[in-house]
């Protein structure tokens, strides 16, 4: 698992160096975060948002297709996990699997209707699907908790038979649980991107017409890419529900979709780790500024505009060599 560069000698900082720095920081976060005024739950939220945005980025940055409705799959993941814990079984792994499947399969089905659309039409239809999911969760009081969100579930300790890991009450253990899931997920993403299929995603982004005249069934590949992307974002959604012991209808809203896109773009959508950097910036802004003013979104917006103006390739994009031509 490493940074997937689409060009040789592309980065100023070598991929393995990025990998070492990122994982060193993630693994030690609970120890140094308090020193800079942070807390472990914020770090977990960063990872969750990063995973959601990295999932989206498979589609946005690597396949070159913009979805403005990924909150739907994030939210379905969260509700799937919450509902499983509340009504089915007190099992964290089962909740994660169920939520991921719910969001991912919804993505596969919506994706079938989407793949012939392009550009702004694709984005509009994804918003519409997202809003459908939002209103269902919002209106279905008895089942989903409606406006108040889904409460009344708690993440379960991890039971390994011989021993259990209490991620329920111990925030640090839960953080490391999130780190492990995040690591497995992004490792899988890196493998996908390095596969022949992953290269076809880049091909579609770079030149759809050329891809088609290589004999590539472009719609099928976009559908698969969209579906994979939805599974990862749904997985992030399940972790979000476990983190908060709460599933929020606003997690399904198009504003959340916009946040996920913003995180990927700010961090650098043409880079593997960009969305993680974007998530650090976004969650920190959200956390610190919202403690000072309720208008925190306008600050986030301002930062977004500044980043896009001065770092058009995103924060991680700065580490990439500019095309010399």
């Amino acid at each position: 698992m490493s940074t997937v560069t689409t060009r040789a000698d592309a980065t100023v900082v070598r991929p393995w160096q990025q990998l070492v720095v990122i994982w060193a920081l993630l693994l030690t976060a609970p120890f140094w975060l308090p020193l800079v005024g942070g807390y472990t739950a914020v770090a977990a939220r960063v990872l969750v948002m990063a995973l959601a945005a990295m999932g989206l980025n498979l589609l946005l940055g690597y396949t070159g297709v913009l979805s403005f409705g990924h909150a739907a799959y994030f939210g379905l993941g969260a509700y799937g996990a919450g509902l499983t814990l509340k009504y089915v079984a007190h099992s964290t792994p089962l909740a994660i699997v169920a939520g991921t499947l719910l969001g991912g399969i919804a993505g596969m089905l919506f994706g079938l209707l989407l793949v012939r659309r392009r550009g702004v039409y694709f984005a509009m239809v994804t918003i519409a699907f997202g809003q459908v999911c939002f209103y269902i969760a919002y209106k279905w009081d008895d089942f989903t908790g409606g406006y108040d969100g889904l409460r009344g579930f708690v993440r379960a300790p991890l039971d390994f038979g011989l021993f259990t890991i209490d991620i329920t009450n111990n925030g640090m253990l839960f953080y490391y649980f999130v780190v492990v899931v995040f690591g497995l997920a992004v490792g899988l993403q890196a493998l996908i991107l390095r596969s022949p299929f992953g290269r076809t995603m880049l091909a579609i982004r770079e030149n759809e017409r050329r891809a088609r005249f290589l004999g590539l069934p472009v719609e099928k590949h976009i559908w698969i890419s969209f579906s994979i992307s939805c599974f990862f974002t749904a997985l992030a959604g399940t972790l979000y529900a476990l983190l908060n012991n709460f599933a929020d209808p606003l997690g399904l809203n198009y504003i959340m979709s916009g946040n996920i896109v913003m995180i990927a773009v700010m961090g650098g959508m043409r880079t593997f780790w960009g969305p993680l950097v974007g998530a650090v910036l976004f969650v920190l802004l959200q956390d610190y500024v919202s403690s000072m003013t309720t208008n925190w979104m306008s600050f986030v917006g301002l930062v977004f505009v500044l980043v896009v103006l001065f770092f058009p390739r995103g924060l991680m994009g700065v580490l990439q060599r500019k095309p010399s031509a």
Partner: protein
Amino acid sequence: MTTAAPKLEVCSATKKFGNLTAVSDVSMRVENGELRAIIGPNGAGKTTFFNLITGFFPPTSGDILMDGLNISRVPAATRVKMGMGRTFQITEIFPELTVRENTRIAVETGLGFSLRAWLNAAEKKRVVDASEEVMTMANLTSKADRLVGELSHGDQRSAEIAMALALKPSLLLLDEPTAGMGDEETYHVTGMIRRLHRDSKYTIVLIEHDMRVVFHLADRISVLAEGKLLAEGTPGEISANEHVQNAYLGKAE
């Protein structure tokens, strides 16, 4: 013994866009191993004719046969799988990927690996070898790790031909392969096409404006004007043809 079907046969193909007839009742027969050039003034319908052959859109009437099979309604991607490779008048490549990645994607797609999540060692070797082979053919080995978008125009056109070759086509369609090239680049690309034709026995149909290239390479030449087939013959016959001289080649030398 029946004679083998021609590589490509176009029977009275017509393409209309509203009131405009871009290609009008054109028939053509390209034998296996032949190098056919299509010439004609701008707007003669050459690229439209190419688009009909490659399945960019279907003909309004008429048929297109490849190896004796009627492919008039077969989608472009399927025609590619049947062995039809093409390059475009305006270079179509993956600009922000390296030459190696460009050819590799083409090879993997050609071998049917495009949906695979991994390749075993033998498969990977096949892909790498085939990719090296077409880069060598296109004289791009020394630039394998450069981004295609950063290469010179001539090298980009060569890279596009390399991608078409990576699919191991039995019929190669080149839309103005030397367009916009300087003398030296034209010389290199012409040499490459000749080697493909003579040494590797490719059947090639190309559209070309540079008459030096056409008369140097082609076995036979088809002349299109205003969507119609004006003449067809060997380079000698075409240069002697009065109609062609009037319509296109120009009398005043």
